[in-house]
């Protein structure tokens, strides 16, 4: 009945475009001119729970519209929300991991505004007494920053997500999908401690990694499981902070950074012209790489916050906190240091592993009794690449650690070349559940490692091409690769390159 609703077409929609003008702009230039930017973030992370925040319906992404909707999510009269303990647990874990102060008593409030994808006419959030206060994210060279700085967390609150308004499918009609309605969100608000777009980008990236490590959110900006609003103001060093503007709905770190840079530029230009900055909410136009006014303070909504009378206060006991604290996994900074020390791999490799949820666990399992450098290269270069090409997410990776390990072992024993190894891996990514040796066997990809056989082949090639041998001996060392090529051609690329190298060197030098 309410699935597809005809409503008015007055909702402006920001044009979505994937073109992005990369106008080079450095906030550092501005610092030299004595301007300073003050930046704060409001991050909404979808809580990674199976059920919604206040109902028993499943959370979903890309499911058929209006299939995961209960009477509570659709705000039927007579319904009462019931808090999902899993959502509370994951938020508490996130707070603890961010060194936040989890409050022993917090409660929920209603935030009122009319919008077709908000069926109750209010969103349940935590305005007056959020679940966690304080905390910080430390940025350091481990994150790719040249110096160390703390971004303090102001508060973390739990709230419900809205449904989705689908514009432009039919002109003049807005369609409503309530699948997302009532999904749990953590809103993480930072203090205005950020000074550049780079710090802002790193803060979000670091938070993403933390959320994925904890399993508390997918933290995926492109899919909307992590959404970011940013507050920006500028002022001349030594003077009080300027008036801030909020930029809403930035859906990638790249756009977040670009929007901050152009907004800083805009505000400085305004101030230089002697104009004042007025407090307002702005959007970011990706195509034009510009921010634009959405609404001013005068036209902003009065949300009429009211304590949610249907939900009792959230009481968090010491015992509960201790229990959650004891189940926290290794946190990203500790993990980075440990992995670099234990396996002697680079920070870059560690960050690549950590970028995917479960990446580190996969690596540590696969690297048992194997060379960590080889394993990390196979994961971050070959496996990530093939998964990406085939549009498979890492958490759906079909290749087991035994399978990946078996490829590395086959290369180590000389059964296959790295090149063939990639073909084996593609086979596995496509769903082949066998180990490397079985696949090589069946496909006939095993390398020629028989020394005698290879010697004969090499000798034949040398004796059939005396002209080229002569050139080599006269100093044209480049022709060496041609000989290797001939051997490979003869053996249909199965010859072990190391052995071929040994034999050719022996006879040519």
């Amino acid at each position, binding site marked *: 009945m309410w699935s597809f609703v005809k409503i008015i077409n007055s909702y402006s929609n920001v044009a979505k475009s994937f073109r992005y003008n990369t106008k080079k702009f450095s906030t550092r230039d501005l610092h030299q001119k004595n301007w300073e930017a003050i930046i704060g973030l409001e991050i909404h992370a979808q809580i990674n729970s199976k059920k919604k925040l206040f109902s028993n319906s499943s959370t979903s992404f890309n499911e058929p519209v209006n299939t995961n909707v209960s009477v509570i999510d659709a705000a039927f*009269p007579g319904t009462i929300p019931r808090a999902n303990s899993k959502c509370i647990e994951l938020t508490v874990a996130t707070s603890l991991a961010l060194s936040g102060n989890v409050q022993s008593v917090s409660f929920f409030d209603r935030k009122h505004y009319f919008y077709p994808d908000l069926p109750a*006419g209010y969103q349940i959030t935590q305005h007056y007494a959020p679940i966690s206060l304080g905390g910080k994210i430390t940025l350091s060279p481990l994150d790719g920053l040249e110096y160390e700085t703390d971004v303090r967390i102001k508060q973390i609150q739990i709230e419900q997500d809205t449904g989705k308004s689908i514009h432009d499918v039919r002109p003049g009609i807005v369609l409503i999908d309530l699948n997302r309605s009532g999904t749990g969100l953590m809103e993480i608000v930072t203090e205005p401690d950020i000074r550049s777009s780079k710090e802002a980008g790193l803060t979000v990236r670091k938070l993403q990694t933390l959320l994925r490590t904890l399993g508390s959110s997918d933290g995926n900006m492109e899919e909307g499981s992590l959404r970011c609003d940013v507050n920006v103001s500028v002022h001349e060093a030594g003077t009080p902070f300027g008036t801030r503007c909020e930029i809403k709905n930035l859906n990638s770190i790249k756009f977040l950074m670009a929007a901050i840079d152009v907004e800083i530029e805009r505000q400085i230009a305004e101030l230089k012209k002697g104009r004042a900055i007025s407090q307002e909410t702005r959007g970011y136009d990706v195509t034009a790489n510009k921010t634009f006014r959405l609404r001013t303070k005068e036209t902003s909504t009065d949300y009429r916050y009211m304590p949610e009378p249907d939900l009792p206060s959230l009481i968090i006991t010491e015992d509960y906190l201790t229990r959650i604290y004891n189940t926290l996994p290794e946190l990203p900074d500790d993990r980075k240091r440990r992995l670099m020390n234990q396996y002697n791999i680079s920070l870059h490799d560690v960050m690549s592993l950590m970028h995917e949820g479960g990446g580190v666990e996969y690596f540590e399992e696969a690297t048992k009794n194997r060379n960590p450098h080889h394993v990390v290269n196979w994961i971050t270069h070959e496996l990530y690449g093939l998964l990406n090409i085939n549009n498979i997410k890492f958490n759906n990776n079909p290749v087991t650690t035994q399978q990946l390990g078996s490829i590395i072992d086959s290369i180590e024993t000389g059964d296959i070349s790295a090149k063939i190894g990639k073909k084996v891996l593609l086979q596995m990514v496509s769903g082949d559940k066998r180990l490397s040796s079985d696949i090589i066997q069946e496909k006939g990809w095993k390398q020629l490692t028989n020394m005698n056989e290879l010697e004969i082949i090499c000798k034949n090639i040398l004796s059939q091409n005396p002209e080229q041998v002569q050139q080599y001996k006269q100093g044209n060392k480049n022709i060496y690769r041609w000989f290797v090529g001939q051997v490979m051609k003869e053996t249909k690329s199965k010859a072990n390159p190391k052995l071929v190298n040994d034999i050719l060197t022996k006879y040519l030098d």
Partner: protein
Amino acid sequence: MIYLNIVGSFNGSLDGIPIAYKDLFCTSSLPTTCGSFMLKDFKSPFNATVVNSLEEAGAIMVGKTNMDEFGMGAANVYSAYGPVYNPQSILFDENHFEENDGERRVAGGSSGGSAAAVASGMCFAALGSDTGGSVRLPASYCGVVGFKPSYGQCSRWGLIAYANSLDTVGILSRTVNDAQIIYDVISKYDVNDSTSITPEVRSINSSIPSFFKLNSNTNDLRGLRIGVPKEYFVSELSESIIDLWKKGISYLKSHGASIVSVSCPNTRHALSAYYILALSEASSNLARFDGVRYGYRNEDSNQKDGLIYADTREIFGKEVKKRIILGTYTLTAGSYGNYFLRAQKIRRMIKSDFDRVFKRPNPLHPIKKDLKFDDDNKVDVLITPVAISTAPKVEDCLTTNVNNFVNTYVNDVLVMPASLAGIPAISIPFGVSSIDGYPIGLQLIAQYGDENTLLGVAKVLEKGAN
């Protein structure tokens, strides 16, 4: 729709018993309109928990009863489907009223339909809802029992909210015993209602001693202390009501109860606190009726700038609109601190007034002891009037006179404190007015969770009815 059990097997304690439901309890077999055009054709996909409980016990739904739109009213003249007339007036003089509807008496609100259905014998009992007297007031006007249990005893899942923090399922019946039978079926924890009293608190509650045990049936009130709160002696009380109040006190005294004058000093703030809190919550609850899924949209005025929902809300009745505007105002950023927060503070003060006068500790915070008050001065129940008058005439309630605006709210002054405190209260028919012959009820109020004592005393009191 009526299901008759022709096989002859026993279906439960209420097998075949006809029950009516106020039209804000969701039922999947009948529409649920809340007395509003906004929900004119609304059929809920689910049953309220209390409806399910009664049906499981074998009860039969005889119908849904009229009410003030979304529970907003004390006379039941604000229903989109017409007022509820007091069945007593029909019994008195059938012909006279056919000529002049305005002369008829109201049934009281907002559960007027439920009270009238019970008073006229249409059903064994009816469920109503009590937010600020909405069960007790019509019970007094119609001459039936109106019982409001403690907040959280009976599930609100499927009760369409007026003011969630005050809404309580209420029972209208002919006798206290009948009310008790219904109460025993619907009073239980419901996981779907986050404000339902948890099994832990229920067990704490039953471990605290009460004057009466469960389902007590004794007339002996020796040792019972009954409080008469002096603040309930308001100037608006009519003579015949004061008379009956005195008779009720004497009657209980004659059964051995000792009578104590007590004070609940914050009673005078209850009315203003109630209207701020209830209307704030109401304005929020009714936001979902935005014309997208309920009501209708006026296609011609869709393009009005900024007022995208304004035209859809014209379906609400005048009283509802008035209360939405007041509630919206008290929640705005500029007035929240001055109104809402102060009203919440007053509410806490009213609660502690009651905690101070009752002997039995409040099971929600049983450890708290107030040492300032002597145990000897504490009481088991309070006795007060329910209404300042007998049922008024329909035309007097429909007047648009500005002076009447607040007067209609004053009607609720005696019933609101118990609602704000969430404590159980019951209206018992105790006699009729010597002036107009219409029924008058007396109210008993007990400590939170002490339904046993409340119902025990009520059973004695109803026997003394004149």
